[in-house]
């Protein structure tokens, strides 16, 4: 089965009661909202929400939207890093923000982009940090922790990097190692903030395939903030589309990717068509209509961010 077919069968299942019993909702975000209070330095208040979506085990949700639309803020609310002002966020029935830090770190792993290290660590040292929430006192790592770290490195195809130093890695290698540390946490919920930012197109597709495959193996639910419209449509089960802090659409990619809506959100003339897998695909309309979709959506994203701030 291709990943797409797997996804299709899985998506069909929860519609039946038996399917729901087997795989209940794991992450529930209901009417959640958040607002930044104005500080001396900051621009006007930013409000997010209300946002509603849910995800089951092994499902991947993409958060899309122009720059400054509240994607990262939503991720922070889901992570329990900040508490939702209204509505609720629940992971297996409990609010992440109310969990003790250690319990939360055993359930939720976050992959950030900027992770600059002060002193050069070996890759295995870095991945072992993911075992911190399971340690006691001074947290000397035991055999089981090492096995888990080795497994995580193997899952991202980075066994060969184990003894390398973090500062010697290329962008793609580094990305895989950072993901391995998150996997070593054995999370139920994996949150990724623009994981594809520094990758070339090959690396992006590879990462998406890997996230999809590992969601089967590790049974995590993933929420991914991304700018990759087409990759999100191809690989994710659900999309939450934000604009100026408001959730303008949420649901399956084919329901969210409507031409008028995307054109309005991204302020760019677009076409939406079907890819060979039946998923929607966005093409930039205009002078270069027949170019490959991927390259074009790239250009499409970089444009609207700047202008959107004034409009929202």
């Amino acid at each position, binding site marked *: 089965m291709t990943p797409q077919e797997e996804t299709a069968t899985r998506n069909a299942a929860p519609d039946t009661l038996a399917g729901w019993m087997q795989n209940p909702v794991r992450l529930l975000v209901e009417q959640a909202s958040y607002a930044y209070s104005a500080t001396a*330095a900051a621009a006007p208040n930013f409000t997010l929400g209300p946002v509603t979506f849910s995800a089951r085990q092994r499902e991947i949700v993409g958060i899309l939207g122009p720059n400054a639309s509240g994607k990262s803020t939503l991720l922070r609310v889901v*992570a329990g*890093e900040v508490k939702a002002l209204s509505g609720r966020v629940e992971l297996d029935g409990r609010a992440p923000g109310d969990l003790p*830090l*250690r319990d*939360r*770190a*055993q359930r*939720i*792993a*976050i992959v*950030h982009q*900027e*992770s*600059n*290290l*002060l*002193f*050069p*660590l070996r890759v*295995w*040292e*870095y991945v*072992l*940090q*993911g075992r*911190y*929430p399971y*340690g006691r006192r*001074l*947290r*000397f*790592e035991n055999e089981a*922790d*090492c096995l888990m*770290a*080795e497994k995580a490195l193997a899952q991202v195809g980075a066994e060969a990097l*184990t003894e390398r130093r973090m500062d010697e890695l290329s962008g793609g290698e580094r990305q895989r190692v950072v993901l391995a540390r998150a996997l070593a*946490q054995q999370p139920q919920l994996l949150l990724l903030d623009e994981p594809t930012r520094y990758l070339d197109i090959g690396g992006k597709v590879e990462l998406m395939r890997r996230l999809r495959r590992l969601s089967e193996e590790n049974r995590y639910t993933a929420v991914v903030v991304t700018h990759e419209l087409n990759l999100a449509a191809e690989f994710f089960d659900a999309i939450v589309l934000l604009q100026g802090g408001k959730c303008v659409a949420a649901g399956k990619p084919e329901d969210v990717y409507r031409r008028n809506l995307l054109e309005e959100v991204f302020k760019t003339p677009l076409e939406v068509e079907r890819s060979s897998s039946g998923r929607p695909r966005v093409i930039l309309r205009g002078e270069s209509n027949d170019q490959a979709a991927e390259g074009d959506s790239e250009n499409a994203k970089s444009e609207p961010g700047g202008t959107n701030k004034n409009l929202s």
Partner: protein
Amino acid sequence: MRPLTPRRIAWICAGLGAVLFLIVVFSLEVGAFPISVTDVVQTLLRGAAALFTGRWDTIPPSDKLIVFGLRLPRIALGILVGAALSVSGASFQALLRNPLADPYVLGVSSGAALGAICSLVWLTRFPWTMQALAFVGALLTITAVYFLGRRGGQLDSTTLLLAGIIAASFLSAIIMFLMTTVSGRDLRGMAFWLMGDLATPPALRMRFLFIVLLLAIGAIYTTASDLNLILTGEREAHHLGVNVARVKLVVYVGASLLTGLAVSVSGAIGYVGLLIPHVIRMLFGSDYRLLIPASALGGAIAVCLADTLARTIVAPTELPVGAMTAAIGAPVFIYLLRRRLA
């Protein structure tokens, strides 16, 4: 994959402890009145035995005076100061996420010195006030430097170092002002003390100082695995389950206490807190569970060695030990800075 084990920490610390012991013996041996190695070891062994039997008369009185009366207290002071400075340097480096952080460079030593001078000028009657005020001075300074070193809500490495240097020069100005009010006889002693000097024995019992030292290092050590994660970023550490606010409180207070302790007995000895943790990292890696005890021993070794040199190379006069550490430390600091910018 070879994770750090308590056994490895114990071995490395035992090795460093042995080096420290050799340096202590060497330091007891040399000086204006040289004693042979065998006499030094014999005196030490007899002294250790006398702690239990109470029979001090087995030791020749001259050896007893020189070893236990003159040289050993000074060496003990060196061990105390070296361990304190080096652990506080390692702590500041992790919390401020800055490899060039050090109590001297950040102005924390100057803050502690100002506190100590205040107690010398106004509160001479109570021996504890010097340590207490040095601690308060250190804590206030690191708080001020921390907030001055932020830019847009983020700690900025260059701004932080500049803030430290500015704080140090400002505090030195106040110290100079206070020192002019002191009578001439005390002035030379104070000037020497400011440079960093182990010649003056502290007014307090040494064992109390060592208890404070061990308590502060112990408190910092309980957060060692948290510091490892804070090195990769506070936000990431938080996500991995570290209670960042609690760790910061414990370590800032602990490191300020260590700086205050060191400065109150020896003045501002610079660069130990910067260099020793770096050397230990190069030798054994940057895991704080190993780095903290190894730095403590390494700092003790370095200060003992520097002080032995300081009192022998220009014998019969003495250099302040701070001049020795600065002469070695400043060029290495420049080297580290250049390598970081390159």
